[in-house]
């Protein structure tokens, strides 16, 4: 006995120690079991679908098919709508045929009502219907009993819906237990008199379960006046072993199966000190999943803004490589398959099936629905210096001067919540920031900019103009009793403006006008934090689900809140300049479509090596679902990094889209020069590399803005047929031409990078050493190493004259890095505009193709109808993998020819053309002879 208790005691102590070490307090956040609808839905057994398609109700018009489904258990009818959308997308909508009251459908996320293409009937019998989806012999088969959809191409099933019979649709119903008596009268009024009588009778079949009409988590009770309203649907993906996306989770790039734990959760939450590698919800949610194998990439976009859980299972999960080989040798007939199941608390089923077939197609398809990445001001792609908090104007001045003193460039300095007057946003602390315009002017004199935080919780204070206006206009979210909802956040008691309301948003936008936002100037931009929304004393640190946004419950719109906050803020920044200037707004919470409004960061991470590592898959996952402008706090927000970790984080961050250092209030200062001259030099070099590459970054964002392709890409996106790339998430591509494998291990002596592409070559950007593709390459590293490779076959423009801010470099000349492939060709692009206005929409830009073939490098105008002039010229051309020419001739636009001087390094086969001097915006040719 004694020994048993001793052991128990030991286990207990261990458990306590472990839970002490884990950062997040998991108990503050729900598991699926603690979320009544998730528990209910997850308990459904596959293969028992009660749904049957009533084929006789089918109506097929040119643009859509409608069909009723009936639940044979309770006789509730659903309406299925099926659309063929332009660009190889199929949309499936399922709603109640006659809901007791309307169910929420997500507005404002789609950029427009998606244009349709005709559907046609191929065949029909009593078991089902076959429709043609138009292109590429694609068909959709509607099976009647049980209801099921199969999307086919030729003989292959691409995707099946309800194949496991987990379609569930909790219809709205009247509460029938006795406790409803007091609200009976109210309820009766709500009943649609036109509702068929059967509605009430069929309810008899549904048993009330716990949590259907009320649910308590910790001390919070969620009264659910509308009762159960969850929806669920399963998708089968034959031939698929790799699925990605559904951010935001602190998780590997490739999603894991969820059979042995909780599903991935999508519910925007302010998670204090989040834990890595688990499916818990974080600050943002994009309900988009990509499925990939070497033949095809597809995507599922589940347009629902309520709390959502996603289960993933696979018939090959857990099988070892050996097991799979055994299957293969024994001719096991089972093809790999991934099954996915989405569960949401309310709303309707509205799902877009993006059929690829290539990754690029899926990105275009998704972009056609929710839009592309906003085109950021060039300066916002440079380096950002943030801290909670820069204490006062003097502090800002000293930090600014510190960058000059140590010759480190930066473009933005940030102010966190302490800059305000008592956490009243749009105001300044009267003592610490008494003359904000003076401060902003000082920054502007150096061609630099500032970001100040504006959070969506508004201090309840009758002396605060913003609060008074929101209250008097009735713009606050209401609690379930109709009063203004109040929660606890940074300012203490706070109200939350209803950003789902368009009038509220336009009022909010108007608050950014220079005459409204005192102390603001054109070089002041905005940061929206805490917009999940974060409510310190709310359930799961967020808003009560029964709070009201007009007619809708917070339950219906929760994941949209942050999206709308950023939308309204970005609109404010556009409006204040009369529609001229591009905005820059950083947000923590996000949803599908948030890419249209600015940048996103991965929230409150920590100064730990694993947090550095996970910044890569977290941003890759966001890029896959449209949000390219992603970054993690360089250095880590919580805790204090060692100088080694800080240097490595700068080196990694310099090659990620949003590059901002940030630190918690309680951590020691960590401006780049505080870690000794050696580390200062290492950080300076990393930041300078970022600045030299700004022309390339800017081009990537222009392209992302035009096409929806991600900027930071997983390798498999560019090498979709190479399974070796499918799970890689410790290295990544920027665009197509730069491969980065940052050093993210403490004390690393080397890294092993996978260089993809069977017939490709890659050039080390530091040594110009050439390496063959399709190999794992061991690279010895020192503290100064950032392993980066340029793809053979590419041309990358850089600006090598790094100055104190990107704006200071505007007119500087370019150096072109031409990396030849084995066929001795290369191509790239150069994009130039004013860097900050919307004038590019009026065709004021330069967009050129740089092309090397047959020993001729030429610059070709890709946009002959666009006009813009630049002072920048080409100061140098470096050709990697070249042979020595005897003569180099430059031919300019006017036909003039001149000889260029050059230098050839035969050991590395590098040819450097000295000062060709042509204007970067003009036609020219350089001929090697």
């Amino acid at each position: 006995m004694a020994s048993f208790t001793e052991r128990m005691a030991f286990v207990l102590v261990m458990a306590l120690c472990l839970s002490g070490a884990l950062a997040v307090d998991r108990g503050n956040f729900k598991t699926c079991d603690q979320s009544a609808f998730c528990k209910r839905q997850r308990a459904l057994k596959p293969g028992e679908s009660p749904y049957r398609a009533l084929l006789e109700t089918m109506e097929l018009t040119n643009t859509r098919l409608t069909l009723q489904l009936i639940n044979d258990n309770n006789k509730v009818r659903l309406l299925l709508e099926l659309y063929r959308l332009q660009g190889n997308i199929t949309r499936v909508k399922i709603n109640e045929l006659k809901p007791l009251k309307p169910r929420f459908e997500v507005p404002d996320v789609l950029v427009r009502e998606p244009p349709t293409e005709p559907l046609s009937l191929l065949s029909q019998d009593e078991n089902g219907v076959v429709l043609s989806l138009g292109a590429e012999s694609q068909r959709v088969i509607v099976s009647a009993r049980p209801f099921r959809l199969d999307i086919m191409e030729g003989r292959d099933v691409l995707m099946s819906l309800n194949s496991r019979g987990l379609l569930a649709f909790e219809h709205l119903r009247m509460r029938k237990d006795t406790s409803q008596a007091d609200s009976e009268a109210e309820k009766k009024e709500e009943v649609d008199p036109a509702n068929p009588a059967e509605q009430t009778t069929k309810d008899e079949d549904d048993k009330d379960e716990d949590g259907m009409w009320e649910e308590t988590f910790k001390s919070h009770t969620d009264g659910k006046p509308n009762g159960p309203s969850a929806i669920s649907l399963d998708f089968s993906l034959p031939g698929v072993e790799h699925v990605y996306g559904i951010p935001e989770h602190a998780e590997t790039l490739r999603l894991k199966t969820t059979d042995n734990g909780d599903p991935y959760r999508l519910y925007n939450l302010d998670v204090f000190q989040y834990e890595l590698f688990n499916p818990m919800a974080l600050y943002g949610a994009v309900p988009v999943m990509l499925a990939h194998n070497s033949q095809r990439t597809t995507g599922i976009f589940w347009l629902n803004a309520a709390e959502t859980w996603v289960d993933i299972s696979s018939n090959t999960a857990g099988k070892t490589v050996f097991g799979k080989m055994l299957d293969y040798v024994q001719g096991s007939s089972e093809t790999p398959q991934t099954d996915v199941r989405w569960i949401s608390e309310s709303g309707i089923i509205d799902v877009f099936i993006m059929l690829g077939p290539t990754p690029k197609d899926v990105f275009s398809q998704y972009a056609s629905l929710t839009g592309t990445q906003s085109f950021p001001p060039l300066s916002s792609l440079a380096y950002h210096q943030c801290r909670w908090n820069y204490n006062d104007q003097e502090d800002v001045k000293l930090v600014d001067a510190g960058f000059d003193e140590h010759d480190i460039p930066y473009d933005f300095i940030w102010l966190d919540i302490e800059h305000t007057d008592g956490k009243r946003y749009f105001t300044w602390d009267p003592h610490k920031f008494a003359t904000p315009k003076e401060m902003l002017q000082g920054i502007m004199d150096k061609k630099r900019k500032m970001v100040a935080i504006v959070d969506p919780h508004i201090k309840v204070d009758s002396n605060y103009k913003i609060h008074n206006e929101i209250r008097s206009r009735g713009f606050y979210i209401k609690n379930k009793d109709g009063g203004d909802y109040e929660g606890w956040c940074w300012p203490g008691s706070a109200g939350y403006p209803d950003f789902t309301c368009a009038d509220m948003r336009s009022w909010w936008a108007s608050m950014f006008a220079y005459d409204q936002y005192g102390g603001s100037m054109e070089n002041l931009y905005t940061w929206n934090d805490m917009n999940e929304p974060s409510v310190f004393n709310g359930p799961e640190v967020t808003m009560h689900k029964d709070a009201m946004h007009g007619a809708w419950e917070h339950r219906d719109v929760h994941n949209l809140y942050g999206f709308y906050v950023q939308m309204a803020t970005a609109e404010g920044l556009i409006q204040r300049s009369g529609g001229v200037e591009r905005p820059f707004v950083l947000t923590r919470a996000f949803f599908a479509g948030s890419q249209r409004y600015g940048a996103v960061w991965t929230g409150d991470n920590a100064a730990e090596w694993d947090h550095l590592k996970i910044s890569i898959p977290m941003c890759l996952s966001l890029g896959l679902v449209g949000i390219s402008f992603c970054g993690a706090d360089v250095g880590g927000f919580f805790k204090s990094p060692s100088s080694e970790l800080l240097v490595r984080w700068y080196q990694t961050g310099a090659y990620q889209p949003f590059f901002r250092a940030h630190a918690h209030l309680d951590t020691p200062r960590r401006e780049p020069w505080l870690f000794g001259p050696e580390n200062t030099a290492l950080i300076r070099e990393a930041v300078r590399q970022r600045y030299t590459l700004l022309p390339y970054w800017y081009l990537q964002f222009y392209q992302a803005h035009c096409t929806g392709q991600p900027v930071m890409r997983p390798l498999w996106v560019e090498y979709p047929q190479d399974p070796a790339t499918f799970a890689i998430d410790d290295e990544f591509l920027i665009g197509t031409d730069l491969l980065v494998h940052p050093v993210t291990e403490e004390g690393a002596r080397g890294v092993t990078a996978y260089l993809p592409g069977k017939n490709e070559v890659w050039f080390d950007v530091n040594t110009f050493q050439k390496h063959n593709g399709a190999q794992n390459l061991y690279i010895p590293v020192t503290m100064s190493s950032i392993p980066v490779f340029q793809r053979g076959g590419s041309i990358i423009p850089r600006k090598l004259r790094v100055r104190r801010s990107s704006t200071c470099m505007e007119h500087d000349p370019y150096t072109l890095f031409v990396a030849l492939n084995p066929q001795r060709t290369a191509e790239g692009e150069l994009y130039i505009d004013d860097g900050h206005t919307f004038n590019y929409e009026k065709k004021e830009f330069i967009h050129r193709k740089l092309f090397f073939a047959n020993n001729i490098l030429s610059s070709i105008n890709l946009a002959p109808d666009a006009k813009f002039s630049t002072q920048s010229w080409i100061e140098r051309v470096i050709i990697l993998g070249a042979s020595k020419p005897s003569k180099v001739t430059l031919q300019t636009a006017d036909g003039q020819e001149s000889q260029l001087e050059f230098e050839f390094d035969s050991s590395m086969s590098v040819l450097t053309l000295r000062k060709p001097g042509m204007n970067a915006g003009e036609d020219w040719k350089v001929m090697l002879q």
Partner: protein
Amino acid sequence: MSGHHYCHLVLLLVLSTGAFAVEVHRPRGVPLSKLQFYEEGKPFTCLDGSHTIPFDRINDDYCDCQDGSDEPGFRSVFIPSSRINDGVCDCCDTTDEYNSGAACQNTCKELGRQEQESLRKLTEIANEGFLLKQQLIQEAKRGIEDKKTKLEEIQTSKKALEDKVEALRTVKETAEEPEKEAKDRHLKAWEDQKAVIRMEKDMAKMAEVFLELDDDADGFVSVSELLSHSELDPNSEDSFTEAEAQTLLGGVDKLDTEGFKSFWSTVKEKYKSEVTADTSVESPQEETTEPASEHDSEQYPEDDVPEDEGEDDEEEEDDDADDVHYKATQEQKDDEDEGVMPPYDDKTQSLIDAAQKARDEFNEVERSLREVSDQISNLEKEISFDFGPSGEFAYLYSQCYDLTTSEYIYRLCPFNRVSQKPKFGGSETSLGTWGKWAGPEDDVHSVMKYEHGQGCWQGPNRSTTVKLTCGTETVVMSTSEPSRCEYLMEFTTPAVCKQPPAPESRPREHVEL
């Protein structure tokens, strides 16, 4: 820090790409000291030896040399090359922006005037401060002399006091001897009386216990009757066996009242009464459980609770609670004591009074001696303290200087402590106590460090760095908290003023601008 610099980019050579001006004296940006390397018309070898290039490639807006030495016009000794033609006016003479289109104003004259003005002021301050410093040094010297004199005086008086203490000690001890005897007598009489009472009580208790144990009331306490009292188990790790009980009873099966006596004397310390056992244990626990928090926000430590010093207050409350508890238990103990000792008889009392008087006199003199000793050690400490090379900081000793900001009153008591007190009520927070001089090696007396102040939540103890600058007055100029809980104070004092160079020897280069 001024944004503008005197750049001295000599504008003798104006080059545009390809074109070459005639009268070359020296290329833009080449300092005279390096002119020998840039010989007109001759090939130029990069200063790092990396290349040799024709002379016309100097300042042609292209870096041929790895060290950039072929582009001296782009790499000023005064500002980094990255600031030339970047559209930001760095040089007051606009020479850094000769090709950027930036509309820079030549502000050198104004700047020069301002600089001269501030230089003049600084010189004035330095001069005046330096004079004051001489006074301080003199004062310090006098102070040291005074202190040494005083020290000697005190040391003499200490000697006298020591003698007096010894004399009074003898008086005291002589008076205390008869006092002690008389008191002991009195006490012993009282103890004897108490022992009788206690024995009676013990007998009564024994009888009571006997009855309590003798469950079957047969006039004997048996082995089985004992077993329910496991507290008597001599070997508490296992159960209380009959054999053990029997051993306790002295090897017999049962005891009558007489036999019980010796048994009782061995077990009475351990024995727990059946009656009191149940009632006494319970109670105090409950109160200590903390009330459940109303919200889920415990995870947001401190920061989300706006502006209060919660922790400190709570600690104080805890202390109070402990005090109350402590007092309560004390009282309980007193209650249990058997009666009160009777007062001393007159004779004893007068002996006590005499002894007390002797004690009082002795204590008083001894206290004076202690004070004198403290004074001596303080003086010695002060005399040997590092108040700077010439004692110029001595005047700061035992002074305090305040700075009032919008929220706080900061107080610097040099060589002692730094603190912060909210302006509108609230308790004072220590920002550190004197640590050490912490300036750079060649000027160690320019920075003071105060350490081990009040701890920060989840952070280090507060500490303060005080930077000293020359001023005619002794003032705390500013405070800041650049990092959480690491404070920085700027403090002016004449004690750090250095003699400014004589006006003639000052470099005059700026003046012409």
